């Protein structure tokens, strides 16, 4: 395969990943590394470098749209970014000492967990929780435009737990080159009891900053190859932008099921390759 053919195929695959990722809300970043390593036989370190860069592109592109709608909470995001960026630095440093086999195994487990999480029904959000003293002091409580019309207020809970989970999310992001949006949403939605819509948009807002923290390390370490990152970044960006446009009208339930099965199968394959040393 020559470079032109390789570039076109990688761009097409990344476009599809970005499109499905944004349509299903599961993020395209998680399937990029398996796509590159399993189908294009790219070394996992190059794959992680390229994925990390494209994560910044999609997150920033989507966040640009979300911040204006008034869902994302800049204060919650900024406070938690302390945890995610430090975590991302730690993860990026760790990546240099971990074998590619171990990386593949961790990636496989993470994919299986994401697939499981996307199928699990979300418990009904509790409303009208009492204000938490720490969250109040940090001025995190806010409001957002609700479906019923008007603004709905919310009180943030369990800040230390959310902060710790965010450190983990950042470390995973730096280690595997993903946005780890699933863990971020888990920390905000489940632990801190932030309304789902606010959690997802704030998470998206944070992903770019988290990825930028580890991208610097990857770049200076020589893991970011321009020839590979170029089709990945342009493809994912185009795909996710198209996805965001048709999202409003599309029926995504079946698509979400298909995509979570794809994620699960890729997870098993990564796990298998890592264990048998095929990576």
């Amino acid at each position, binding site marked *: 395969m020559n470079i032109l053919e390789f570039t076109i195929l990688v761009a097409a695959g990344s476009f599809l990943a970005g499109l499905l990722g944004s349509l299903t809300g599961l993020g395209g970043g998680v399937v990029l590394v398996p796509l590159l390593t399993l189908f294009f036989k790219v*070394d996992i370190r190059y794959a992680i470098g390229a994925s990390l860069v494209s994560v910044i592109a999609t997150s920033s592109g989507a966040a640009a749209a979300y911040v204006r709608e008034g869902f994302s909470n800049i204060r919650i995001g*900024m406070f938690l970014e302390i945890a995610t960026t430090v975590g991302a*630095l730690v993860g990026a*440093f760790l990546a240099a000492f971990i074998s590619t086999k171990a990386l593949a195994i961790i990636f496989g487990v993470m994919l299986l967990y994401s697939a499981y999480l996307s199928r699990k029904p979300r418990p009904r959000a509790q409303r009208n929780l009492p204000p938490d003293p720490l969250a109040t002091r940090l001025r995190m409580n806010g*409001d957002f435009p609700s479906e019923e019309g008007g603004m709905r*207020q919310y009180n943030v809970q369990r800040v230390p737990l959310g902060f710790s989970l965010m450190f983990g999310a950042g470390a995973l992001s730096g280690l595997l080159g993903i946005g780890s949006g699933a863990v971020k949403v888990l920390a905000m939605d489940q632990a801190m009891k932030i309304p789902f819509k606010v959690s997802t948009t704030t998470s998206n807002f944070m992903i770019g900053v988290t990825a930028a923290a580890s991208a610097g390390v990857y770049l200076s370490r020589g893991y970011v190859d321009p*020839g590979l990152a170029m089709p990945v970044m342009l493809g994912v960006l185009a795909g996710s932008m198209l996805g965001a446009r048709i999202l409003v009208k599309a029926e995504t339930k079946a698509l979400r099921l298909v995509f979570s099965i794809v994620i699960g199968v890729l997870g098993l394959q990564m796990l298998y390759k890592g264990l048998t040393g095929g990576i």
Partner: protein
Amino acid sequence: MPTTRNWTDKNIEEIVGTLLRVGVSLSAFVVSIGAAIYLARHGREPANYRVFHGEPSDLRSLSGIVREAFHFRGRGIIQLGLLLLIATPVARVAFSIWGFAEEHDRLYMIFTGIVLIVLLYSLLGSGSAF
């Protein structure tokens, strides 16, 4: 204080949205130009990413990347575009400090400052990047 979204908050979000959009578009534009040059010159060569050997030092550091880009090397221009992309969230965080300063929110100026320091450390201090 349940409501933190006042006029300034809305205004900041407006500017942050524009900043992110401009950063990503500019980066995609630069990467595309680099891609055209790179593919025109090297498109017919065999692709090989199976073996990891790391990037040459000229594509790892800011000075090297700028030098390569000014010599119209496709890979250097792509890398410059990617560097712009990484700089976009950093610029967003830097801008937020100003935003919180406008609101006289000293606590969040400190939080944002910590995030900015971590980001700059990653870009400047973690290796030979600059």
